[in-house]
């Protein structure tokens, strides 16, 4: 009597079978990602309920029941949002009180920003090394375009306003804070006790106080600190203060970059006989700055959002222009529309910058490879 074999013979192949229907395709995906267990099911249902509650009413408000044309708020008869002001006020939202015929200068400055930034942000660009000279010249070019002189009609800085003011203050702050921040970061790591103490004090003071108090310094104290026969425009004073504020944050970002450069690089540079400045300028800083770019972009996003604070000292940035508009009888009470519009504006700009910085972080992160 032969015993029935307990296991199959190894030469008997079992035909491949597809995985169970419940783990495949749409059903499988749903089960794995939305309904795996009672807690997940509850969360999914709650999420669906919230979406069902908000999305239709928001869409109705923003698009389906909204009015898009008209001369004032009385033209808006629908139950939804009133977007009629966009058509009339968009110039003011974008350019503030910049003279009508001259807004091309703002646009040109913005367009020229692309070739100025490209060689810094994307280093594999063909011709990048030549474009870098343009990057260096860009701040001067942009200042000339915006303020005028050399044949261009001069525009006083109190005409700056709207989104253009936010961009100007943010960009000027970040560009000017880069060299100051580098010096502060080097100062903080310096072996000279006085230089180190002063750098630490500067960084901690400017990081420790709210930007608003510094803006009050720009508005009220700087004129007291300067000789009475010497006056600076408010916008310029704000840029000075914002630069000091941003360079404290910048210094910390760059210090992080400096710390990430291996010691061997310093030692190799010294072994080659390079002095302090050449060690830093030729060997250490190029590597440190490259590592710091995501941090710099993040600092810029924060600074750019903070430029809306200038409304507390009476500058007319995009938010203040909006607030003035909804106080106007024609558009009285359109607060939500105005705020939603400006939010979307900022969101688009800041979100794309933060995506770029994440992309860069991934590319620079060599640890995972």
């Amino acid at each position, binding site marked *: 009597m032969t015993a029935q074999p307990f296991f199959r013979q190894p030469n008997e192949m079992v035909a491949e079978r597809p995985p169970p229907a419940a783990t495949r395709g749409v059903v499988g995906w749903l089960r*794995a*990602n*939305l309904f*795996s267990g009672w807690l*997940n099911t509850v*969360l*999914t249902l709650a*999420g*669906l309920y*919230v*979406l069902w509650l908000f999305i239709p009413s928001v869409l109705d408000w923003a698009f389906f029941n909204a009015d898009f044309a008209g001369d004032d708020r009385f033209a808006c008869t629908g139950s939804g949002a009133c977007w009629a002001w966009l058509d009339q006020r968009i110039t003011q939202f974008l350019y503030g009180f910049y003279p009508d015929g001259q807004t091309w200068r703002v646009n040109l400055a913005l367009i020229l920003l692309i070739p100025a930034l490209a060689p810094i942000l994307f280093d594999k660009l063909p011709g990048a090394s030549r474009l870098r000279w343009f990057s260096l010249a860009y701040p001067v070019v942009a200042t000339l375009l915006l303020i005028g002189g050399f044949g261009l009609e001069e525009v006083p800085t109190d005409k700056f306003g709207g989104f253009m003011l936010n961009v100007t203050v943010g960009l000027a702050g970040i560009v000017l804070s880069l060299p100051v921040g580098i010096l502060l970061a080097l100062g903080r790591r310096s*072996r*000279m*006790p*006085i*230089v180190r103490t*002063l750098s630490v004090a500067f960084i*901690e*003071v400017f*990081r*420790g*106080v*709210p*930007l*608003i*108090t510094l803006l*009050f*310094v720009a508005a*009220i*104290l700087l*004129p*007291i*600190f*300067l*000789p*009475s026969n010497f006056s600076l425009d408010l916008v310029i004073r704000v840029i000075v203060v914002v630069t000091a504020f941003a360079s404290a944050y910048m210094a910390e970002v760059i210090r992080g970059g400096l710390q990430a450069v291996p010691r061997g690089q310093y030692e190799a540079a010294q072994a080659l006989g390079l002095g302090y400045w050449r060690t830093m300028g030729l060997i250490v800083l190029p590597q440190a700055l490259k590592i710091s770019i995501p941090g710099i972009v993040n600092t810029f*996003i924060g600074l750019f*959002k*903070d430029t*809306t*604070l200038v*409304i*507390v000292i009476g500058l007319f940035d995009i*938010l203040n222009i909006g607030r003035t508009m909804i106080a106007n009888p024609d558009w009285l009470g359109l*607060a*939500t529309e105005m*705020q939603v519009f*400006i*939010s979307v504006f*900022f*969101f688009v700009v*800041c*979100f794309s910058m*933060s995506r770029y910085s994440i992309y860069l972080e991934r590319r620079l992160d060599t640890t995972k490879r």
Partner: protein
Amino acid sequence: MSSVSDASGFRLGRALSDERARSAIFQLLVVLGLALLVAFIVFNTIANLQARGLQPGFGFLSDPAFFDINQNLIQYDSQSTFGRALLVGLLNTLLVSALGIIAATVIGFVAGVLRLSNNWLVSRMITVYVEFTRNVPVLLQIIFWWSILTTLPRVRDSLSIGGTIFLNNRGFRMPAPIFEDGFAWVIVLLLLGIVAAFALSRWARDRQMATGQTFPSFWVGLGVIVVPAVLLYLILGQPLDWDIPERTRFNFRGGFNVTPELVALWWALSTYTGAFISEIVRAGILSVSKGQTEAAHSLGLRPNLTMRKIIIPQALRVIIPPLTSQYLNLTKNSSLAIAIGYQDFVSIGNTTLNQSGQAIEVVALWMVVYLSLSLGTSAFMNWYNRHIALVER
């Protein structure tokens, strides 16, 4: 140095080639430049203040302020001094910061954990919340929530929640607790219970270390805290009453009012900072390597214990330092109160500055107060961070 030891008098070239001398000279120049700058500023300031007829000094703090403050945690009226007004403002700043820090931490941890959940829909919804909130200026969000709250009905048509809480465009009217005789003893007993529960959990941990026997210290501790306090509360005849707001013709009597400014500022700061905290929490949890979870599972720990004993203690070490800076950011951002008329330290400072003209003094006070808040918080967090880091070994 030996080859140039025949120093016969000072030579600039030789001094410049010696690193120590060079750095001394450089620092001397820095100090000199700074002193010149300070002298220049002081000189201009004195001249400008004289031209405007202003007396520098902090004497104005004891002058009467003559303005009202709509939310004061301590006794204040318009006859009180500038100093007291600033103190009221400082307390308002601390109040909204403390409330905001608590709420932002809760929102941040919940959102951070939910974003990592297996549930596709929920993690996407949290992503939308985080990305949208982080990329819109917080000032705009504060103004947005405030303008929503001010569209609530007028006082006369207040929305009522169960007849005890009333919502209107002047704020939330809530029942106020009235503490009667003996309630202090309940609080004392509650505090004693907390101390006892801590001692108990310590004892239970030591015993587990020594013998391996576990003890349900959480539930017993909770009982030690709650049961005696509740018993005493009942024995004393429930010495806590509520002052429930009542409608009068034009307003409410009783209860206390939470201003829409406070609610809007608190909510905007909490959701904004919460979004940042959720990213920190997510990064912290992701930073604990998967091997830790697998090792815990292979030791037979259940998911709940794995999370509590293995993942969270390690994640916290990564989370705490950036969390500190978020708390500081929230405190600093609370100064945006000025845009919606919540009278915090900066806002009242600004009023003081306009009324007394003492700009330098007020700005100096701002700087000193915010700097001590920042340095104090970071000192505390550094201490806590060291405390947590010791757990490692």
